[in-house]
């Protein structure tokens, strides 16, 4: 189903079954079909990846040639308080907003079960935000919604006037360092539509007869959910989790627009990628930014590996 499962299958079995009966070698044709991909891999991906590692060992500002200085950049990373802040912001964002987003996606997918009238309409409505969520336009909207005179505060004013019992303090949600990151988390949760669609597809794979057998045995809907649906859905939950964690680590647009490119207020929305961008393209610390890039790669790789390792304990594979 996914690139991830394909990779783990490669690891388990060795070959994706695609050998033709007559074991021929199509070297020449492969050159034609895979030529562009090979060049792209070398020039656009692998070359820059290697160059990035070399640059991470240098001091380089684009204007004068790179000066080799060993692990100095990595040492500087250890004591960089802004970097620590960026890591804290990014990890908080990932660990809070991804589970919430997946919970919303799963909850909605379970509500939208088979045979529900208007399923297609609901699915579209809930999916739409995830199509738009990554755009600059929506980030601009968000900045306004949570601004001092924004929609949220307007609703709160109205709510506070309506009744005397509960009073919620209005504030500039994006200009307050305590709440700015929260607004971006809400934006991420708002885009739960795409994992929801994946869950819906997963739910459809579960054979109807399991439920029929369970209800003949008198299992309640709740029992069916815990005993059939969730266990059979764990591979999909896992897949969504890996995907959304990788995505969330790379959040850039939203923090750039909402904070005006600074990661403020007081670095409270300084995402890792934004800090990398600032170091590379504002401060022209290309060497330092490259070291940051390798740390990012390491983090994403470790998180993905950790996810795979932990999956042994909770993901249920039917095959």
């Amino acid at each position, binding site marked *: 189903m*996914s*690139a991830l499962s394909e*990779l783990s299958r490669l690891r388990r079995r060795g070959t*994706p079954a*695609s050998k033709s009966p007559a074991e021929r070698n*199509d*070297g020449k*044709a492969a050159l034609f*079909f*895979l030529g*562009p*991909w090979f*060049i*792209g*891999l070398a*020039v*656009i991906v692998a070359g820059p*990846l290697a*160059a*990035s590692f070399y*640059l991470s060992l240098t001091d380089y500002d684009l204007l004068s040639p790179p000066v080799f200085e060993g692990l100095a950049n990595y040492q500087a990373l250890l004591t960089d308080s802004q970097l620590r802040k960026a890591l804290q912001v990014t990890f908080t964002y990932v660990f809070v907003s991804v589970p919430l987003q997946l919970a919303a996606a799963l909850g*909605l997918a379970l*509500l939208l079960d088979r045979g529900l009238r208007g399923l297609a309409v*609901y699915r*579209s409505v809930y999916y*739409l*935000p*995830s*199509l*738009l969520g990554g*755009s*600059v*336009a*929506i980030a*601009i*909207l968000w*900045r*306004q*919604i949570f601004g001092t*005179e*924004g929609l949220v505060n*307007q*609703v709160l004013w109205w709510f506070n006037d309506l009744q005397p019992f509960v009073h919620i303090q209005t504030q500039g949600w994006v200009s307050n360092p305590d709440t700015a990151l929260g607004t971006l988390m809400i934006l991420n949760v708002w885009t739960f539509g795409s994992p929801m*669609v994946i869950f*819906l*597809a997963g739910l459809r794979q579960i054979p109807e007869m399991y439920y029929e057998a369970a209800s003949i045995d008198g299992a309640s809907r709740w029992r069916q959910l815990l005993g059939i649906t969730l266990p059979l859905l764990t591979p999909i939950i896992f*897949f*969504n989790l890996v995907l959304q964690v*990788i*995505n969330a*680590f790379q959040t*850039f647009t939203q923090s750039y*627009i909402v904070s*005006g490119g600074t990661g403020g207020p007081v670095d409270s929305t300084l995402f890792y*990628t934004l800090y990398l961008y600032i170091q590379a393209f504002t401060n022209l610390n290309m060497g330092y930014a*490259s070291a940051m*890039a390798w740390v*990012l*790669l390491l983090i*994403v790789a470790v998180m993905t590996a950790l996810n795979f390792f932990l999956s042994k304990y909770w993901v249920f594979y039917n095959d």
Partner: protein
Amino acid sequence: MTDAARAELVLMNASRAAARRHASWRRAGKHALLVLGGLLMLYPLLWMVASSFKPEALIFREPGLLASEFTTENYAFGWDFLRRPFSWYITNSLIVVAGAVIGNLVSCSLAAYGFARLNFKFKNLWFAIMLMSIMLPIHVIIVPQYILFSNIGWINTFLPLIAPKVLATDAFFVFLMVQFFRGIPRELDEAARIDGAGHPRIFFRIMLPLSVPALATTAIFTFIWTWNDFFSQLIFLTHPDMYTVPVALRTFLDATGQNHWGPMFAMSLISLVPLFAIFLFGQRFLVKGIATTGIK
């Protein structure tokens, strides 16, 4: 039928009716919940649409969707606010998007045929590398890419945004099409081979015509991602005349600060129109694409 049995039957019918009533209440409750949730999800968008047609002074005074006054002034003002009319930036975006879509369609389908149908040395290794490159964050390689493109004078051209697509670096779509090609019966190509067709002929005459759904999915997602892409367009396009829509919107935001929300909403909405259009007309492919491959 004895009285006892009849009584039991009546009771059974009653409880079945009650259960049915219960189920229909349940269903109504569920729909109410879903409609309410849907409104909550869409309200920010609807409010943006409404605000773009309100006089500036009213945007912050009326949280509702209906304004006491209606105006299109925001659109007129926003359209000509930057150095160039907004259509300039839309054109730039469309050029980048067209290049990316064509590039991805050609290069990814070629590479996918290679992986799905050809045998060559170290194929499994190359395939694994291709899969892993899907997960490589762009941020890791952006600095050397920038240095490379600036050395060959490509900064402030659309080439850094298009050339990688022509070289199939969006490995995600290679994988998507490999999956699709694998589902096409091999008997078809074997038959063509017996008739003397070579690989290019099989690719163009058999595989591509059968792969329209996968090609459509690739085109649609490339469109959406490129249209929304801010990071690389911000880096590679620094001259105002080369700005694409996302970068132009950023400039708009910087230039006006908090002063012109109405025109900014108007232009933001215009930037979302192509996405809405795809949403309306390409939904079949969107949903299928996400469901089978897990893209956003």
